């Protein structure tokens, strides 16, 4: 049996087992389309990124209004983390994918009003921070196509400890 057909058999078994199992069956079926507002996760390949775009210049305005209070002037740190630094570990010089920066900003920021930034504002403020860190150019446009292609400086800086060797 080829590897491919072995996998197909295994897949069929998983599905067959699922269908046959006794469960209370109290979960309500839902369509993926109806989960759009909840399904905010983004993959490093860009899957899940919304339509929209923004530049560093547009992001500067957003940053000064909504982020600077905690993260300081030009993301240099304040009562909360600095986002750009040449000497200390920050989100820009440490996380391996630019999509993480967009994702966390969209789901968790600003602190007091999470999930209130529009897609354009999120792309713009992400562009502003990436440009401050000199990872992208001043005039680069961030959108669903360009953001996943950004090469973060620490892209290859991690080794997975999973699966465990035991």
């Amino acid at each position, binding site marked *: 049996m080829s590897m491919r057909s072995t*996998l197909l058999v*295994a*897949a069929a078994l*998983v*599905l067959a*087992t*699922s*269908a046959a*199992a006794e*469960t*209370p*069956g*109290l*979960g*309500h*079926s*839902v*369509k*993926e389309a109806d*989960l759009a507002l*909840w*399904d*905010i*996760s*983004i*993959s*490093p390949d860009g899957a899940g990124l919304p339509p929209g775009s923004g530049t560093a210049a547009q992001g500067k305005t957003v940053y000064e209004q909504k982020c600077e209070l*905690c993260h300081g002037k030009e993301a240099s740190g304040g*009562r*909360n983390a600095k986002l750009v630094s040449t000497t200390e*570990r920050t*989100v820009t010089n*440490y*996380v*391996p*994918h630019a*999509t*993480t920066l967009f*994702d*966390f900003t969209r*789901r*968790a920021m600003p*602190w*007091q009003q*999470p*999930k209130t930034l529009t897609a354009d504002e999120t792309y713009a403020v992400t562009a502003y921070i990436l440009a401050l860190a000199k990872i992208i150019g001043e005039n680069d446009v961030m959108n669903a196509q360009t953001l996943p292609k950004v090469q973060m400086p620490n892209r*290859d*800086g*991690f*080794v*997975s*400890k*999973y*699966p*465990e060797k*035991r």
Partner: protein
Amino acid sequence: MSISKKSDLDQLEAVAGNGLINRRALLGRGIAFAGATTAGASATFTSAGAEPLPVDPWSLTIGSPIPAYETPSKYEKHVVRTLTNPNHEPRTSQARTPHHLLNGTITPNGLHFVVSRTGFPDIDPAKHRLVVHGLVKEPKVFTLEALARYPMESRIHFVECGGNSAPLYNKDPIQANVQAIHGLVSCSEWTGVRLSTLLEETGIDPKAKWFLAEGADAPSMNRSIPIAKALDDAMIALYQNGERINPSQGYPMRLLLPGYEGNMNVKWLHRIKLIEAPVMAINETMQYTMRIAGQKSWQFYFPQEVKSFVTHPSPGLALKGPGFYEISGLAYSGNGRISRVMVSADGGKSWAQAALQEPVLSKALTRFRMPWRWDGQPVVLQSRAWDEAGNVQPTRAQIVAERGEPRVNLPVTAFPMGHMNVVTSWAVDNKGEVKHVYA
């Protein structure tokens, strides 16, 4: 039992340096042992004064009305968590369990440790929903009312922050107590529904290798978790020590991943999405990765490895003169049951095996006890644990050799290193004061 109480104590078999006594003294020789300690206590009373014992005032008046929900005695008001952000400023909050003031293995719900980005959300349980979608055959939504009708099970497991015990990676030994150093681990009986039961209902697309778990809190805290854990022992927990889980533990439901680092046990759980590969969330890149000198950063380090520490005595719990004490502490492993705990009173030169309090459960706190006769001289107390998978708790020197020499001293609120499961050393001076040292 009153005859020769001193010789009863002397007869107890010393098994390691500086007065460690065979643990069987706690069990097999219990009578001789109890006799020795009781005699010691009554000797103190006799010498204290000749007055007959009075009838105490609380025996002469009626008691207080029984409240609908009871909290500990007013005399126990000092037994509380320490808070790093009591004014709820815009930053993470940490609350630590006071292990030096507790005994047994179950953490009271109000004292369970917390690490939270924005405090706890006010979730209406009637409106809360859990969505399971992504690489499934059929996406489903579960209400709390529906989940309450599913087959449940109860299991006792610890939850530990990946950053617990991080101060042990400081350059110099931090002068802090058990609560500050090791207070980000707690243990509860969790009751809920196996995640695999829900996945049977949705079906699993064989392409699914991971799943995303996400909370309904303000920052929608999320983590990527291997699908193997979902099919193993992952649980949607609804109850903690018999009652609905507390708001800061994820009310009305949290993910429980026995043995895995704390933040993966996503609180206020509202979404599970089956995926092919990790999403690289902030909590698996910026946080909860480990920078190792001269190597790439360690990512996806899930199990909380075998660890133990002495809680009694410990800094703040000074010894009151030479004589008998029970050394006691906690041991646990994210890889299974504790198989053995060894205790040293001479900084690791000699070791004696501690008694383990039954039942010894997998991925749960295990209490160890060691009888000890302190002669009043300076000693260094240590404990070291083994788990059933054959893992042994490393010394600090071993971890430093593996991960690099620490160069700074940081406060307990900072986390210079994750997954620090090294041996802790308490130095007792000749006055009985206990201090944290590296030994």
